[in-house]
C-alpha cells in the first residue's frame, strides 16, 4: 500500500460524500452578522436579558425543588455547551477556583474557569446576604497586562430547576461568561493570569400584572405587539475585582 493509494482513496471517498457544490457561506454570514451585532458594549445587557429569561422560565415553569448534585456551573455548562464546536467537560477540564469579594452585602465568587487558545469560560456566583437578587453588570475580563478580552456570550440561573437539578437560595445567581479571542500571551499549558471586573445591580422584577403598560406601541404595532415596560434600575454595587489564573488547555487551537 502506497501513500499515493491512501491519498487517492481518501480523495475519491470525499468527492462522493461531499459534493463540490457545497456552500457554507450563507450560514457563516448569518452567524458572523449575529456575532458582530452582539458586541462587547451590549454583552452585559445580553447577559442580563438571558439570565432574566432563563430565571423566569426556571422559576415559573419548574415549580418542584431539587438540590444540586454538583456545582451549579457544571449543570449550566452541560446544558449550554453542546452548542459549541468543542464543548468543555467541566468535571474534566478547567480548574475549580474559590476567589470571592464582598462589597456591601453582595458577594461575587469565581468558582471555575477554563481557557484555550480560542476562548475563556468563567463560572461565578452573585449572592446577597439579605435575599435580594442582584445580576452581573458591566462584566469585563482582562489579562495581567490589562488587555481586555471581549465577552462573546453568557448565561445564568436563579431559583430552582428540575431540568438543571439545582435549587439556589434566595438572592443567589450562578453565571457562566464566555470570553472570546484571548490573545494574552500565554502558551498552551502555561497559566493565564486574569482579572474579572463587574458591578452587581439589584434586580427589581415587576409584579406579573404590571409587566405591560397596555399603552399602544409607538413603533410597529398590530394585534401581536405588546409594549413592555423597561425594568426599573435597582441598586448598583461594586466594582468587584477578582484575580485568578487558569492554565491554557493545549488541546485546542
Amino acid at each position, binding site marked *: *500500500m*502506497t501513500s499515493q493509494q*491512501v491519498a487517492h482513496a*481518501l480523495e475519491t*471517498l470525499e468527492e462522493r460524500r461531499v459534493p463540490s457544490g457545497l456552500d457554507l457561506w450563507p450560514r457563516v454570514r448569518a452567524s*458572523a452578522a449575529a456575532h458582530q451585532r452582539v458586541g462587547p458594549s451590549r454583552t452585559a445587557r445580553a447577559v442580563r436579558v438571558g439570565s432574566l429569561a432563563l430565571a423566569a422560565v426556571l422559576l415559573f415553569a419548574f415549580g418542584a425543588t431539587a438540590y444540586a448534585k454538583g456545582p451549579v456551573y457544571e449543570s449550566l455548562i452541560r446544558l449550554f455547551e453542546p452548542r459549541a*464546536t468543542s464543548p468543555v467537560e467541566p468535571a474534566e477540564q478547567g480548574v475549580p477556583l474559590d476567589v470571592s469579594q464582598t462589597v456591601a452585602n453582595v458577594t461575587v465568587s469565581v468558582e471555575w474557569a477554563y481557557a484555550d487558545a480560542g476562548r475563556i469560560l468563567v463560572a461565578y456566583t452573585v449572592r446577597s446576604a439579605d435575599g435580594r437578587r442582584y445580576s452581573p453588570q458591566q462584566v469585563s475580563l482582562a489579562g495581567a497586562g490589562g488587555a481586555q478580552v471581549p465577552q462573546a456570550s453568557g448565561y445564568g440561573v436563579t431559583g430552582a430547576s428540575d431540568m438543571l437539578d439545582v435549587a439556589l437560595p434566595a438572592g443567589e445567581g450562578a453565571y457562566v461568561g464566555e470570553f472570546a479571542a484571548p490573545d494574552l500571551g500565554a502558551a498552551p499549558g502555561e497559566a493565564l493570569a486574569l482579572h474579572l471586573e463587574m458591578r452587581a445591580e439589584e434586580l427589581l422584577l415587576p409584579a406579573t400584572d404590571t409587566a405591560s403598560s397596555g399603552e399602544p406601541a409607538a413603533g410597529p404595532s398590530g394585534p401581536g405587539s405588546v409594549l413592555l415596560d423597561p425594568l426599573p434600575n435597582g441598586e448598583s454595587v461594586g466594582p468587584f475585582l477578582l484575580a485568578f489564573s487558569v492554565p491554557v488547555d493545549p488541546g485546542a487551537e
Partner: protein
Amino acid sequence: MEEREALVRLKAGDIAALEVLTRTYQLRAVRAADLVVRDRTLAEDIVAETFLSVLRRSGRLDASRPFGPWFLRCVVNNARKAASRRERTAQLRGEEVSLEDLLPSQEPGPEALAQDAALRDAVWAALGRLSPEQRAAVVQRYYLGLSEQEMAAASGCPPGTIKWRLYAARERLRGWLYPLWEPAPAHEPSGSQGIDSRKEMRT
C-alpha cells in the same frame, strides 16, 4: 480579492473578506472533517464554527502567513476532539460489518464501477476502525499533505508520537485492506515515507 488582502480586511473587521476565505477553503475543510468525524452534518458544523472562531480572533491573524494550512489544521483538530467525544459516548454500531464482506472480488471483471464502490466502502469501514487520533493523523498526512513536523506542531504532540500514530494507522489499514492494494513500488519500500502528496492534492 486575494487571500492576503482578505486577511488584511478581515483584521479590520470586514466580514465580506470572510466570504473569500470561506469559499476558498470550505470544501477541503468539510471533506477533511468528514473523514475524521464520519458525519457530514457534524463536519459542516465544525467548519462553520471554525470560520466563526477565525472571525472572533481576526485581530490576531498574521496576514503574511498562509491561511489555508493553519485553518485546515484547526479544523482537523476540532474534528478529532468531536470524534473523541462522540466515541466516548456512543458505540459505532454501523461499523460492525466484517471488512471481508466489503472487500471486492479479486477476480478482474467488467463491473469496474461496482468494484470502485466496494473499494470505497472498504476504505471507509477501515478508517472507522481507527481511533480518532489515528484517523486525524491519516487525514492530516495523506489528505491534507502535512509533514510530520507540521502535524506535531498542530497537535502539540512530540514528533515521535505523530510518527507512531501514523505507523500504527498505516499498519492497521494495510492489514485490513491488503488484498485491495497493488504492491508498493520499489522506490517506496515500506510505504512509510511516501511522496509529499500535498503537491498532487492541491485544488
